[in-house]
């Protein structure tokens, strides 16, 4: 009996050794991948002003800007001793809820505050209200997998029909007309959308209902997928994986997911001379066409989805940081101002394109830079 037990123990130990060995090895692997990136960023982050920044700054919200936030937080913390910025990517809705309950210093959101949310924010912002500061932009790419077809071109109306299940075959005349000389297969279109609620869905919906109003009659404000039909997958990564695996599939996600899994993206025929590709630069050009619709220090943007500007990619997502204009908590205010000053600064915006996001156009960035110091 005793002998038997010993062999059992020995086998367990061996198993544990193998497992922990594997863990150690994988840990090394990921470290190695991250370090060249990291060192480059930290050396760049030299002139961050940390005036009075101290302690912990809590924030929560949009998952769309999480990667940008991670970079900013890393650089900011490296420059300012003893400061900790904690951004929880729990989704825009959750971020706004937490902000309005006074649990976080600022919220990240894919869409500007609604009226009732502004009213609610007045309870937290003593003597002021919540304002939207545009901070990160990015293209929503339409990814597809269609063997033998490269550089597919679509326009808003066709896209709406595809996602509405009105066009069901790839060799549909409407698609063929936009892609002269391309041999389109007689294959069913499998349109994928998000199964969870998402700001990405909302922004695509806003684009379609503006640029293809006749075809897309669904509520543009909804975060869950409004159209009947199609198939769903969980999260941007789920949609990207589904599109990558399925011949004849089409779906939408932030550009970084397309680049990461090398999925071909649709070029949009916006009415400009050339079809526009989804790139950070092209998204920046489209954001430049946006108008500020907020009043006072609120910089909520009204995006121009119908832009025909050369090289402007119109399916864009702008994420805001939401903070109080007046009545921010005294102990976090200096840190909040220092952090947002950095994110809006030229240096902070420059970091964005490395992460697949679009920097704010100069005009809007300047406005944000004017507002941030006035927060109180």
């Amino acid at each position, binding site marked *: 009996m005793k002998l038997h037990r010993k062999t*059992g123990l020995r*086998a*367990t130990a*061996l*198993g544990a050794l193998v497992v922990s060995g594997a863990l150690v090895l994988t840990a090394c692997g990921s470290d190695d991948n991250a370090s060249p990136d990291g060192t480059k960023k930290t050396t760049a982050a030299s002139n961050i002003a940390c005036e009075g920044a101290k302690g912990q700054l809590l924030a929560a919200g949009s*998952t769309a800007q999480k990667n940008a936030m991670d970079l900013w937080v890393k650089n900011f913390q490296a420059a300012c001793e003893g400061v900790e910025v904690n951004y929880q990517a*729990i*989704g*825009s*809705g*959750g971020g*706004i*809820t937490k902000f309005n309950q006074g649990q976080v210093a600022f919220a990240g959101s894919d869409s500007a505050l609604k009226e009732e949310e502004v009213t609610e924010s007045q309870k937290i912002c003593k003597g002021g209200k919540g304002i939207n500061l545009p901070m990160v932009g990015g293209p929503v790419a339409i990814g597809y997998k269609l063997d033998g077809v490269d550089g597919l071109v679509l326009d808003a109306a066709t896209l709406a029909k595809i996602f509405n299940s009105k066009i*069901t075959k790839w060799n549909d005349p409407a698609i063929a007309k936009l892609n002269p000389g391309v041999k389109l297969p007689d294959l*069913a279109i*499998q349109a994928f959308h998000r*199964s*969870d*609620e*998402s*700001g990405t869905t909302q922004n695509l919906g806003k684009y379609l209902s503006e640029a293809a109003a006749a075809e897309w009659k669904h*509520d543009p404000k*909804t*975060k*869950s*997928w409004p159209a*009947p*039909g*199609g*198939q*769903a*997958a*969980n999260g941007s990564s*789920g949609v990207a*994986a*589904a599109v990558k*695996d*399925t011949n*004849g599939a089409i779906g939408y996600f932030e550009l970084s997911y397309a680049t990461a899994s090398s999925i071909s993206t649709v070029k949009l025929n916006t009415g400009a001379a050339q079809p526009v590709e989804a790139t950070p630069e092209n998204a920046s050009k489209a954001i430049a066409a946006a108008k500020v619709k907020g009043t006072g220090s609120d910089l909520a943007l009204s995006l121009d989805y119908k832009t025909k500007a050369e090289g402007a990619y119109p399916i864009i997502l702008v994420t805001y940081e939401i903070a109080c204009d007046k009545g921010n908590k005294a102990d976090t205010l200096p840190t909040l101002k220092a952090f947002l000053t950095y994110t809006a600064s030229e240096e902070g915006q420059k970091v964005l394109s490395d992460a697949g996001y679009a920097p704010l156009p100069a005009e809007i960035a300047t406005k944000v830079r004017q507002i941030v110091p006035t927060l109180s």
Partner: protein
Amino acid sequence: MATATPHHAPPPGGNQTTTPKTSAPSRAGDRIFRGLSRGSGITLLVIMAAIAVFLTYRAVLAISKNEGDFLTTSEWNPAGNPPVFGIAVLAFGTIVSSIIAMVIAVPIAIGIALFISHYAPRRLASPLAYVVDLLAAVPSIIYGLWGAIFLVPYLGGLNRWLDQYMGWTYVFDKSGEGVARNLFTVGVLLAIMILPIITNVTREVFLQVPRMHEEAALALGATRWETIRMSVLPFGRSGIISASMLGLGRALGETMAVAVVLSPSFLISGHILDPGGGTFAQNIAAKFNEANEFGRDALIASGLVLFVITLLVNGAARWIIGRRKEYSGANA
């Protein structure tokens, strides 16, 4: 794997004599132990009551503002103006996927349990039982990833086959192209996930069939299968039912695996091979992150319904087990 310890059911009525029963707690140790166990019991009741009160309170908040009928509406838009949401689709999807899971899992679980308890050589039986138990230790998100990446592509062929040859049944009629992110795939995945609990409990019951019954049947000249049919299965029937109910309870509440695999939509469709449908738990997982406060209350209201359904199912299982205590599977 190597740590597999021999796993035998203790012989019934082995050494009962070593623990004589004392009628009244007279010593201090007894009183303390009694107080502790009573305290634990009460704590459990309080926790359950707290969950129920919380769910009911938030659910009432949401339902009182709901513009649709909570039970029959097949739409989920609590953020809309006016807010409309209902659980019809979720209840339908939850029940259908659980039924599919049960139809697949119960026969297989009984087969495995019979094999382990009556057919397999002992050297094979205990490792096999152990491996089945290991299935329960795999986290459900892992099942979800495996389901979405491995199972979905592989079930595509089966889906086409079912559509082609069984399409006349309406249930297996597939209305279009599409990957297998449907209620059927979810059912298959759930079946795998509930196998261990059903197998385990059923096996314990089978092992407790009195030897005399089986020997009597064998003495009458019955084959092994006839013995099983005449003595083991009738004896274990209520055990099988209660095991299945415990499995059903798990299938009803499975969240992450379903959320990753299913392609949900708010439509009730009897075509189980078409993408669509949804389950309570999946819907909560999918909508919770981005929901506003009222949306969360609405999700909690749907959670209350699931809570009640699961309580009923588990209660029924306990009741069936309790009816014939002498071969209870509750100690499994």
